[in-house]
């Protein structure tokens, strides 16, 4: 199915997706959308792992396993993050990131 599609194309896609995620993380004000941006970033990394595995070392499964673990960690992270968001929401009544600045100087 992937014959004729060079490796670089996958990488371009994942790179752009990664930086869209970064950009989203920086510009969005809402904690949940920031979380989504993080999911984008993780996802792009996953793509990279899998693609490298397939193209460069098709006889091994490391990339795939790494991705699996990342998915696991992403799940854990998301659950904790959402718990935090809910808690913050309870405390400051919204989830705008600008309002969460207790930890400054």
């Amino acid at each position, binding site marked *: *199915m*992937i014959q004729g599609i060079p*490796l*670089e194309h996958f990488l*371009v*896609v994942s*790179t*752009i*997706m990664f*930086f*869209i995620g*970064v*950009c*989203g*993380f*920086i*510009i*969005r*004000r809402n904690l*949940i*959308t920031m979380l*989504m*941006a993080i999911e*984008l970033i993780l*996802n792009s990394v*996953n*793509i990279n792992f*899998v693609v490298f595995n*397939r*193209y*460069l*070392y*098709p*006889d*091994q*499964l490391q990339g*795939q*396993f790494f*991705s*699996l673990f990342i*998915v*696991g*960690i*992403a*799940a*854990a*992270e*998301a*659950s*904790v993050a*959402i*718990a*935090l*968001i*809910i*808690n913050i*929401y*309870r*405390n400051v009544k919204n*989830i705008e990131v600008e309002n969460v600045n207790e930890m400054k100087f």
Partner: protein
Amino acid sequence: MFYLFSGIILICSLLSITTRRILRAAVYLLCVLLATAGLYFMLNYQFMAAVQLTLYAGGIVVLIIFSILLTHHISHRFQHPNLTKLIMGIGAATVGIGLVLTTILSHSFQAGTAPELPVDMTVIGNQLLSTGKNGYVLPFELISILLLAAMIAAIVVAKKEKNKNSEI
């Protein structure tokens, strides 16, 4: 086929960080994740794709949507992002994309020539639980503990405090 998926991924991810309605953002994210799963299918990694579908698309996105529903009004619209941040974000992204793409494209990857490993569930299962070479039991256990810890942490953090005053 690949370009279709790629197009969906890029467009939807861009939309998901620019849309002003949060639920739409979540839906766009779902599209991205589904398209990614499609890519995995193309790469012939069915298990990976399945995990992507179930865990990401099914689990995390649902979780996000739940939390959105908990914390937002459905018709909530975001304010426009503030300008400095916009510049910062776009700047960082542009520079990053430029940097990484030039690096990637100037590098020629040597495609592996080894025969392809059949990727069926037994292989994955065995490797995941074996201790020898190519065995992943240790990270597997670690991730399980991490998940457990995250679960407990999530419960503790999100639990309603009985005494309002003692909140941080």
